């Protein structure tokens, strides 16, 4: 079930109403049943895969907690193996087989291994990572094993964040299922406002920009370098609004029922370094990789060259997490390179006690933000392109800058208008947070006018036939 559908609006109203009508002790069951229904609206049979990992992780958690030494470790490995195994089969099997076919064809041989004709279960990487964080935290002793199977299943399947995060940690979410949430009007309105802003970002900005981006990126051979540059910048905003819009709706929907999910985005395009960008973009995944991979590789306690290698590995894995395609690996590798280069630069500057002239001025900071944005945009080319060849074809075309800019009046008008509205809000939040507030203004006239304006914009400019969220495929 897509958040941007009438089905979801009905589902949300029904589930939330029942949630507050039910006694506290039955609420977890309602949420679990609702989450199963939500997930089964995509491909029903895939709930069995989810069920398989839930059962293994549930028992693994209890056994890990009760045992010591090798047994403890081996059950962690069982759990990780089950989760990564599911990912490997459903997400990476055909990719690996593709590469094997390519290598064998170079040697003039045919690949005897058959391909699997399977669809990737929606949001597999998200709930797999959330499940893995549970067993790792139990193993590390930071989380008690959950004894109630239903509550543990709900931790993995909680519908607002089931298919595209935020990827929660057990310490933050599990205990909330035991807390009694009262009907708090302020909190409910807070959640609804966040959902409204999320819908605006998805329907008005992301899906609108997608019409231009898809036209250019699906047929790059028919478009000029200038068009592809504009499409890449638009894609940067599209993917941001698509994913952060989803996160806002998820966090808002959970908040309405009394749950606090972690913040996933913090206006990432205002970052002045790539390192800062990764602290503001998909925070739940960045911190997951930091907590469970980077630190496991040695963190900052190893030699400087090893830190560089570890960072690079983390970003390569992050790229692969996003999709089984070399484009994602290059995207991750590029971001890893940016980060390593930035650390090396900072170390050199510190060593020779140098400062970049004007770096702290308004102009210097603006330049840093713009430069970081352009670096990120460059990496998005690989993220969006259908394959590596197409990505390089696009880059070559961009370098030539030949040909006219593809514009159709309404498309360009809506794209620019939606981006301006987004930027007005984000600039205000970033630099003038204490200043005039629209949604939280003390005057009900301003508040209600803002709600109505956003709703009207969604009705007038929203793309209602838009597709699913980009991150669902991961």
């Amino acid at each position: 079930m897509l958040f941007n559908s009438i089905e979801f609006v009905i589902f949300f109203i029904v589930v939330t109403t029942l949630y507050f009508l039910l006694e506290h002790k039955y609420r977890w069951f309602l949420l679990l049943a609702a989450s199963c229904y939500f997930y089964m609206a995509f491909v029903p049979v895939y709930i069995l895969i989810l069920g398989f990992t839930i059962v293994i992780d549930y028992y693994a958690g209890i056994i890990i907690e009760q045992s010591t030494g090798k047994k403890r470790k081996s059950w962690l490995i069982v759990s990780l193996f089950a989760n990564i195994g599911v990912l490997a089969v459903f997400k990476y099997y055909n990719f690996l087989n593709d590469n094997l076919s390519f290598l064998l064809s170079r040697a003039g041989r045919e690949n005897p291994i058959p391909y699997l004709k399977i669809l990737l279960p929606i949001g597999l990487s998200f709930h797999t990572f959330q499940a893995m964080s549970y067993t790792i935290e139990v193993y590390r002793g930071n989380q008690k094993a959950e004894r109630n199977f239903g509550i543990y299943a709900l931790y993995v399947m909680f519908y607002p964040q089931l298919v595209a995060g935020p990827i929660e940690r057990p310490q933050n979410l599990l205990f909330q299922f035991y807390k009694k949430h009262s009907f708090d009007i302020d909190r409910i309105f807070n959640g609804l406002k966040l959902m409204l802003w999320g819908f605006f970002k998805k329907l008005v900005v992301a899906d609108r920009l997608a019409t231009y981006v898809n036209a250019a990126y699906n047929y790059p051979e028919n478009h000029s370098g200038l068009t592809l540059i504009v499409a890449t910048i638009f894609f940067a905003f599209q993917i941001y609004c698509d994913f952060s819009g989803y996160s806002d709706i998820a966090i808002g929907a959970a908040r309405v029922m009394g749950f606090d999910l972690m913040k996933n985005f913090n206006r990432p395009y205002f970052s002045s370094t790539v390192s800062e960008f990764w602290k503001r973009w998909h925070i739940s995944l960045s911190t997951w990789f930091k907590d469970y991979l980077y630190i496991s590789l040695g963190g900052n306690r190893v030699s400087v060259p090893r830190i560089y290698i570890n960072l690079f590995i983390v970003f390569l894995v992050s790229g692969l997490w996003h999709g089984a395609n070399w484009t994602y690996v290059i995207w991750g590798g590029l971001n890893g390179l940016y980060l390593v280069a930035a650390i090396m630069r900072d170390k050199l500057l510190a060593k020779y006690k140098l400062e970049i002239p004007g770096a702290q001025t308004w102009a210097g900071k603006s330049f840093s933000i713009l430069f970081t944005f352009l670096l990120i945009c460059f990496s998005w080319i690989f993220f969006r392109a259908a394959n590596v060849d197409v990505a390089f074809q696009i880059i070559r075309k961009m370098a030539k800058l030949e040909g006219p800019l593809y514009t159709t009046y309404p498309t360009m008008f809506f794209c620019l208008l939606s981006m301006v509205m987004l930027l007005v809000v984000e600039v205000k939040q970033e630099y003038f947070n204490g200043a005039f507030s629209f949604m939280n203004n003390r005057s009900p006239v301003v508040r209600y006018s803002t709600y109505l304006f956003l709703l009207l914009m969604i009705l007038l400019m929203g793309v209602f036939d838009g597709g699913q969220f980009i991150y669902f495929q991961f």
Partner: protein
Amino acid sequence: MVFFRKILILVVLLLAVDFLAGAVLKHFYFRQKSGIDYQTIYSVEKANEDILFFGSSRAAHHYVPDIFADKYAMSAYNTGRDGNYILYGYCLAKCIFERHQPKLAIIDVSRNEFQRKEGSYDYLSSLLPFYGNYESIRDIIDKRSRFEPVKLFFHTYPYNSLFPVIALNVIREKSKALNIKGYIPLYRSIDRPAKVISKEPDYELDPYLVDTFRQFIKKCKENGIAVAVVCSPYFDKYEQEDATLIKVKEICSEESVTFLDYSQDARFTGNQKKFDDYNHLNNDAAKEYSAICSDTLRILQHKIN
């Protein structure tokens, strides 16, 4: 109680604003003087020509009404619209036939037109402003999505994404396209050689689209309108017959309707000078094609009048 009062206020305000904005948009939508929507408005509400062309952009760019008008000594209008296919054409026909019966209806069909694919009814959004006034097309428009009638509860929904276009077309005078009776000329020549496509992926036919096509023909016949089905030329060379065209041929044969297949006509296919892009003839070629097509179709003349 406070919560429900707040929600109620918001809902009432939203409905009021939606009603007002919808009324303003409706007012200006039907007062457009140019543009693609004007052509739809004209087709639905005013078209009274003897010969009407139905189809997608390929119809809009391939049939020059003046040439047909000269050959038949009748008036002609091209209702073809970019990105709109058989469902759009059938809806237009239903609306038009309620008040006017042309003498000849020419339906242009495309390769893959009846392919079952996700979102293939989305283009019917171009007819949403007519949903309220034309009951006969509601069941077709409702196919867009399960909750289409719910969405249409909002008065602004039919005009979604249209306000900048409406604003422009209310001010802008009649376009050149309109002056040539719905035909939209293209002037470039394609800059790549034709591809030889030996095999295209197989696809499943959408039974609803196939049935609509059959209903379209029946509707014409019920109203005493002569009907011809045509597939206009393609630039690329297809070595395999298309499933849609096979089905079209079959239905035309069953319904005793003329089907002319120019999709691989050697006078056009593969000729870079005659195509604006891989799907559309340019203006000179469209005139040539219209002359050829109208000559061939004259065999139908005995059915007219």
